């Protein structure tokens, strides 16, 4: 049971380089998210998607782009890497809940990509 799979696990980039962080889920979840986690700062939402073809900005979208062409995949693109983007990136997915708690289904997270920009 794979759940949410992120690749690569680690990456070192030079300033100005670009890369794509991959995320795929096999739970047929509609909602997918990208978070970054900095030490002691909790998780900050970068972008999210409520379904294929639909994406929206979170709290910290600057410097990132996303696309959602399929239900399973939600890649995150860094175009011009900067040292401020050094972080651990987590992808997550969830499904719409049922009834009165329709927004409250828990997130399923991948194991993260540790990115260093030097």
């Amino acid at each position, binding site marked *: 049971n794979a759940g949410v799979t992120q690749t690569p696990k680690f990456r070192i980039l030079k300033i100005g380089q670009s890369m794509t962080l991959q995320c795929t889920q096999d739970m047929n979840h509609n909602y997918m998210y990208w978070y970054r986690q900095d030490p*002691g700062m909790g998780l900050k939402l970068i972008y999210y998607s409520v379904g294929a073809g639909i994406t929206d900005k979170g709290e910290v979208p600057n410097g990132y782009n996303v696309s959602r062409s399929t239900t399973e995949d939600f890649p995150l693109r860094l175009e011009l890497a900067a040292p401020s983007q050094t972080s651990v990136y987590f992808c997550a997915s969830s499904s719409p809940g049922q009834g009165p*708690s329709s927004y409250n289904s828990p997130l399923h*997270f991948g194991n993260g990509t540790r990115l260093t920009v030097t």
Partner: protein
Amino acid sequence: EDQVTQSPEALRLQEGESSSLNCSYTVSGLRGLFWYRQDPGKGPEFLFTLYSAGEEKEKERLKATLTKKESFLHITAPKPEDSATYLCAVLIKAAGNKLTFGGGTRVLVKP
């Protein structure tokens, strides 16, 4: 502004020494409060959801409670395998299905 604050930042416990973690929030229109556990090098793993003040949920040595301003995660007679970072997150009515996370509490349980 919606805020979620966790305390303490770090907690060192002896095995069997019970303690509590705090998650205080100032949000408008709480829809739910979530607790997650995160092991080093891993993604957060869901523990509990609490929806209304007075609600309690338990899982093994963990018990989560909720008031109108804060939530507590009680760890009873912890074991070394309870060592992890514990994250709380809130879901507010105005934010759709997007969670706001606190900074986490790192718990270390020594044998």
